[in-house]
């Protein structure tokens, strides 16, 4: 018995090496491995193929096999997953054509002949079980014809997906309102519509041993540096994970410093932002199933730049940007500075302010540190609750929270009104970060900063700030220094850091990306009232 078994294994192994496993060995109860499926060639016998498919996909009740006869005589079958294909296309176009209107019924139609006549936009071929199954599971319809040891993979995707909507986390007043959806094809089309260039390269791979999630690496040939593209490709290719459900999975697998609290890859749901990054020579990674695209590499300052900075007049854009930098600092430091100053350095306050703080704190039972921690934690709880709860309930919670925490806590003498103001300003400031990930970082680092302030005063705050700065200076994003162009100093790129220079002045692409194409704006584009200009009536 054992001997027979060993012999069988040996034979199976031999056959597998030659890429020929008899289909009957595929039918079993154990999980199927991609390698096995890839090794299993399709048979010329339609019945056999369908039987094996049933065995492989038998547990899936949404797996549909529709057997029919081409032109009423030649046996064939279309296999699909119910709900993944466009039913109208399947019924009205594919089946109707194949069954009724196929004329050459006396001669068995070859697969090539069928392909030539089928009214579908994209048709591929499959020779083994893996290609077949992958196609079917991705929403394609696979046509199997008796007597052919291959199938036609007809693109018939028709599953429901969300319509293109306004990006929820990055709204703008002026600028495109389109945001990415969960559909990779749609997302790529949004990019293509912004950059009509054959040099917009989309390299697609499937990541996830089980999930086989399509992931697209997008870059501009001739702009992005070859080294960068190669590095992103290398990092994506080494990913070996069971499933990729969100781009965050990839982010954590391709970032340079896995222990850092700072995001090193920018996640955005704005196609215009991705297009702008591509034009600067960066690489984008789009993942099917999530509206968030990744942009690599990303420096710290870029995280504080909103898309709208470029869509508003540059003076306003610059002013808002300056405010955003200040707000980031405030969201990180305001509570800790307040704690430090009120518990260690009262001499730094103006006298009248000190007196009003002292009056407000009179009767508050907690030290400033505990008071601040209490308020910050309850604020964070409120915020989290507001996100998680169903929308109508969420509003109620935020109202109750504001009343309870803002009003009742003060009236009850648990916290001082000033602390409420500090926490509120901090909260608002943290919403000013255009990238959610960065706001989260500031929120997270705020707490150790508060502890430092509460134990060491401003000395502690400065220690913390220095530690953060040193950490940031050591970070890399795909090998690029995180704090560039501030350090290493690249004065040429300072036109687009704290202030945003007018478009005609932003001639060169960021130098640290080492773009293959240095200049993006032609020389001498600064407008001036010329003699033939529109202002003078042209003459």
């Amino acid at each position, binding site marked *: 018995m054992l001997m027979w078994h060993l012999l069988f294994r040996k034979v199976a192994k031999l056959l597998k090496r030659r890429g020929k496993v008899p289909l009957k060995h595929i039918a079993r109860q154990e999980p199927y491995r991609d390698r096995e499926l890839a090794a299993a060639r399709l048979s010329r016998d339609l019945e056999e193929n369908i039987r094996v498919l049933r065995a492989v996909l038998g547990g899936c009740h949404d797996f549909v096999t529709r057997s029919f006869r081409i032109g009423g005589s030649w046996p064939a079958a279309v296999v699909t997953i119910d709900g993944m294909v466009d039913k109208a296309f399947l019924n009205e176009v594919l089946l109707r054509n194949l069954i009724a209107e196929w004329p050459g019924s006396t001669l068995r139609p070859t697969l090539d002949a069928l392909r030539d006549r089928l009214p579908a936009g994209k048709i591929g071929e499959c020779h083994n079980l893996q290609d077949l199954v992958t196609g079917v599971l991705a929403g394609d319809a696979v046509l199997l014809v008796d007597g052919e040891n291959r199938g036609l993979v007809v693109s018939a995707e028709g599953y429901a997906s969300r319509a293109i909507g306004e990006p929820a986390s990055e709204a703008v007043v002026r600028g495109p309102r389109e945001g990415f959806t969960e559909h990779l094809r749609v997302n790529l089309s949004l990019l293509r519509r912004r950059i009509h260039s054959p040099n917009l390269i989309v390299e697609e791979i499937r990541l996830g041993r089980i999930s086989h999630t399509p992931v697209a690496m997008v870059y501009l040939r001739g702009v992005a540096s070859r080294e960068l593209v190669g590095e992103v490709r290398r990092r994506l290719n080494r990913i070996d994970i069971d499933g990729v459900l969100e781009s965050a999975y990839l982010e954590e697998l391709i970032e340079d410093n896995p*222990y850092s609290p700072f995001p090193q890859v920018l996640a955005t749901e704005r196609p215009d932002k991705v297009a702008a990054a591509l034009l600067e020579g960066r690489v984008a990674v789009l993942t099917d199933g999530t509206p968030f695209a990744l942009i690599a590499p990303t420096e710290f300052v870029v995280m504080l730049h909103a898309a709208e900075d470029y869509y508003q007049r540059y003076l306003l854009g610059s002013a808002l940007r300056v405010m955003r930098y200040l707000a980031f600092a405030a969201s990180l430091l305001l509570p800790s500075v307040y704690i430090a100053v*009120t*518990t*260690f350095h*009262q*001499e730094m306050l103006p*006298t009248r302010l*000190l*007196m*009003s*703080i*002292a*009056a*407000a*704190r*009179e*009767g*508050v039972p907690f*030290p*400033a540190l505990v008071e601040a921690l209490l308020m910050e934690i309850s604020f964070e709880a409120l915020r989290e609750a507001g996100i998680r709860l169903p929308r109508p309930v969420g509003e109620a919670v935020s109202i109750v929270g504001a009343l309870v925490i803002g009003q009742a806590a003060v009236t009850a003498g648990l916290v001082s*009104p000033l602390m409420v103001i500090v926490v509120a300003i901090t909260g608002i400031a943290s919403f000013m970060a255009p990238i959610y990930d960065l706001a989260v970082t500031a929120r997270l680092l705020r707490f150790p900063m508060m*502890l*430092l302030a*509460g*134990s*060491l*005063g401003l000395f*502690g705050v400065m220690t913390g700030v220095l530690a953060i700065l040193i950490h940031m200076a050591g970070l890399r994003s795909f090998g690029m220094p995180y704090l560039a162009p501030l350090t290493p100093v690249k004065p040429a790129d300072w036109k687009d850091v704290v202030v945003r220079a007018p478009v005609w002045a932003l001639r060169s692409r960021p130098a640290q990306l080492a773009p293959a194409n240095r200049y993006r704006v032609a020389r001498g584009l600064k407008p001036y009232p010329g003699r033939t200009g529109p202002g003078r009536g042209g003459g």
Partner: protein
Amino acid sequence: MWRRIAFTALLLVSLTLPSGCWDQREVEQLGIVLATAVDKGRGGQLEVHVQVVIPRALAGGGMGGMGGGGGMTIRPYRHYSATGATVFEAMRQLSMEAPRRLFFAHNQIILIDEEVAREGLREVLDFFDRSTQIRRHIWLLIAKHGQVHEVLMTPSPLELIPAQRLVGMIHERSLSSRFAPQRLGDFVEMLEAEGQEPFTALAALVPTRVEKGKGPGDGQEAGGGEGDRGVPEFAAEPLVNIRLSGAAVFLGDRMVGALDEKETRGLLWVRGEVWGGSMTVPCGEGENITVEILRSQARIAPREEGGPLGFVVQIRTEGNVMESHSQKDLRQPEVMEELAACQAAEIAKEVEAALTRAKTMRADVFGFGATLHRKKPELWHQLKDRWSEVWPTLAVEVQVEARLRRTGLVSIPLEPK
């Protein structure tokens, strides 16, 4: 990796927690001192007063819990006094009476009794100069003998805390330029400088116009409730007001006398510190115009070679005509020049008055010696040991250049017909 992280975290925690918090103090645990006064105490000791704010009583609206229905009944400040052989000793005595740790970083006024000043400030100022909490930019004032306590206790409805009231008056000093307060740091520098004697403003009490019998002793009671005939009573006005005027003049660290208000402005003219104030200038018979001073500059120089030592004081000032009782036509440039010349003469008189008074006290508050030190060091080194005898004998020439800029909205004075 995790071991390293845990180790680092432990290190950080032990760095911050055991070493931290040692000088931590919550705001509400502080006794915020706004004014410190040094008075003569019993048996040759010093008596130190501190004025501590009660923030709760200052806060409006929100913290109404304590007042009940009857309005504010707590005075927003509290005094503590103690005596000791030295300032610091007296201050530490205070901790036996004050429930909170006294915090001097916001001290704004140092008030010193005239008698203490006459005995010498060196010992008294040492503590204030040395202390890390007390700042050098706070104001040093001299109070008339025996009035220190009253000056610190006189409330005012506009500024609830006397210390802030004094500071407010000092901030508006250029509206009159008739008193010359000095910051602690400046005073100490003058004290140590060669050829410059220190001076600072005097604080005194002046009676106010209140109906006799109605004013309470020191005005600390608020009129609660209704009066006899149902007429609401307001908090009674205090009987006295604080007035800053003139300048206390020191020779070394001892106060030797005072300049009156006119002489004080003379001093400020020479120092180029008149930044405002009014000046009534007689022009013609019984006719006055009043000038508002806008700014001034002054330059002291030893007289050029070839004569006996002396000084030239050049004063340049600009002003506006604010009031005219004369029928002169101010549109004429010659008239304006004439008026300006009158004003210049008037300024010279003020300076002369200051010089005369300072010379009697031998105190070179103008800094002639310091100028000589800078301009003619050899001469200064010959003279410096007997400077206080030498300088009153020297001639000082005062050159004033006054300019009148604007005459207001009226160019021809009112003429009833």
